[in-house]
């Protein structure tokens, strides 16, 4: 029984990996066309990603190099963004900080998404005592003021970047758990889930093929938003001396160390890293908006 050409062949082709990649690329293109803000957001994120990855080739000087005698130099031909009170080039530090900040944020979001989605699926689908225990644990996590939690963990462990990663991850796990749980609770009442069960789906496949794809879109948009919070949180943590400290360049600590100088009218140590953070967060939020719009299945133009 040979399959006829045409749509059948198309369907067949759509299974293999290359076609999947092709489809993904086309989806991105479609997304870019569908939302101008989303496209801008994605563009901004792409630029930042490039900077984070290839920053070391872009910095004019080493980010930790101290230029004695040039402390707090205003922006000029030698130091495009000026220098901070230690004499380190702000432009280089701002660029290099991208890798640090985005690295931590990405790592922590990845952890919390995986754990949060997993827990959310569990509590959404299997009710009972597991549900209760996990939810209360989430409550506890969310009840802690983040900075206090961070300091407590730091006091108990080594002060390091991974501490910051885990702290931020912990903070966000309850968010994703509840989000997915809410979606799953809604979805499991759907008729199409009953139809999927009637057709004979076992639970794992039901979750993977029917529940998750419909529960995930709100999560992805939430990721974009939480990423922004993560960046702010890294900065806040650095602000209280947790996670990252001098001389590692990090936007938050740069802002912190530069703040005392503002009063004297020395704006560049704080403004440049501040703008860097701000633009990234703006881009992320634009991307989140665009994704939310794009993922409404009713707006598909095939």
């Amino acid at each position: 029984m040979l399959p006829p050409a045409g749509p059948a062949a198309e369907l067949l082709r759509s299974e293999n990996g290359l076609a999947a990649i092709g489809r993904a690329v086309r989806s991105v293109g479609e997304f870019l066309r569908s939302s101008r803000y989303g496209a801008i957001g994605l563009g901004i994120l792409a630029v930042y990603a490039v900077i984070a990855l290839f920053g070391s080739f872009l910095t004019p000087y080493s980010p930790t190099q101290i230029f004695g005698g040039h402390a707090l130099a205003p922006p000029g031909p030698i130091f495009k963004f000026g220098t901070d009170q230690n004499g380190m080039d702000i432009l280089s530090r701002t660029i290099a900080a991208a890798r640090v900040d985005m690295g931590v944020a990405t790592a922590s979001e990845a952890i919390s998404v995986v754990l949060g989605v997993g827990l959310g699926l569990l509590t959404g689908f299997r009710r009972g005592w597991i549900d209760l225990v996990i939810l209360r644990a989430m409550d506890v996590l969310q009840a802690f003021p983040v900075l206090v939690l961070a300091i407590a963990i730091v006091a108990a462990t080594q002060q390091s970047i991974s501490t910051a990663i885990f702290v931020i991850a912990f903070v966000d796990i309850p968010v994703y758990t509840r989000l997915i749980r809410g979606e799953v609770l809604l979805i499991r009442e759907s008729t199409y889930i009953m139809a999927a069960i009637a057709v004979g789906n076992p639970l794992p496949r039901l979750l993977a093929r029917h529940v998750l794809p419909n529960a995930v879109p709100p999560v992805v948009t939430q990721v974009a938003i939480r990423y922004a919070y993560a960046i702010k949180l890294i900065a806040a943590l650095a602000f209280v001396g947790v996670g990252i400290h001098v001389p590692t360049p990090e936007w938050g600590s740069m802002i912190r160390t530069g703040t005392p100088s503002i009063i004297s009218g020395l704006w560049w140590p704080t403004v440049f890293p501040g703008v860097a953070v701000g633009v990234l967060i703006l881009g992320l939020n634009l991307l989140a908006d665009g994704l939310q719009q794009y993922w409404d299945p009713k707006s598909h133009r095939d």
Partner: protein
Amino acid sequence: MPQTTLEVIDLVKQFPGPNRGDIVHALNGVSLRIEAGTTLGVVGESGSGKSTLGRCVLRLYEPTSGRVLLDSEDVTAMAEGRLRSHRARMQMVFQDPYASANPRMRIGEIVEEPLILHTVLDRPHRVARVIELLRQVGLQPEHALRHPHQLSGGQLQRVGIARAIATDPALIVLDEPTSSLDVSVRAEILALLRRLQSDLGTAYLFVSHDLDTVRATCDRVAVMYLGRIVESGTPNDLFRDPQHPYTQILLSATLAPRPDDRRPRLRARAGAADNLYLPPGCPFAPRCPLAREECTVDVPAFRQRTASHAAACVRMDDGTAAVAAIREPDNLGLTR
């Protein structure tokens, strides 16, 4: 000798009610039988339990007690693994085609899924079968690439039917398959279902609230009220010679699209059908205009009117099971 595809024995289903300790008695002992290649219509209003019946038969809801036999195998006693693979033999078509289709799946994937789950066909063969199924239900192969929201209600319901027949099941439960569809599309879908039944020999359990739809499509009809079957027979039996007072009232209220088909209006006594607090005796007794004292004591047994036609009403014994037509209502007292 026609073989019995489905046999339901004394099916009971209870749900927890809104308040603690409340029990919703959705099904209160339903028994029925469907022969291979025939259609049994189950008719009732809200609260009758007809949808619950369909779902319990497929074990989408777990019955509280009773048995369901599909081709003589006890579905209610099956373990989960066995049940899942057995689902290839019993499928469902849902009322709202848009709600019962995963909005993120393409049509081809939706129809392919039962094949993935229940057959050992490889991809090319599955795809070929999907195309063939789509053609069988009157769709074009191009539709396989679309998403549910891009199809009309009628087209999407055909997809639901294609999905249901994919594994050539012995039984299909149709839960109000045409109620959400436009009038002009209904007839086509019903014709399609009839044709498929004669081609494939599938038994249908056709749940509906509309007696007219059921009249044309079903070989036998059962009327349900508050979780029980109150009357069953051929459509002719029920339409020409309804025995149970509820059937008569239901018939009189059904508006046929024929101005000449004027039925005298018969009315039930006021009150709502409430399956939280089930009264003893006949479920219809509180609203029945012919109720007698004995009606509230025991649930009436079925009495055969003819070989094919039975109803559960004590008044059949003395032949007084006819509900009188009401007069035209009086002045309502509305003024400008």
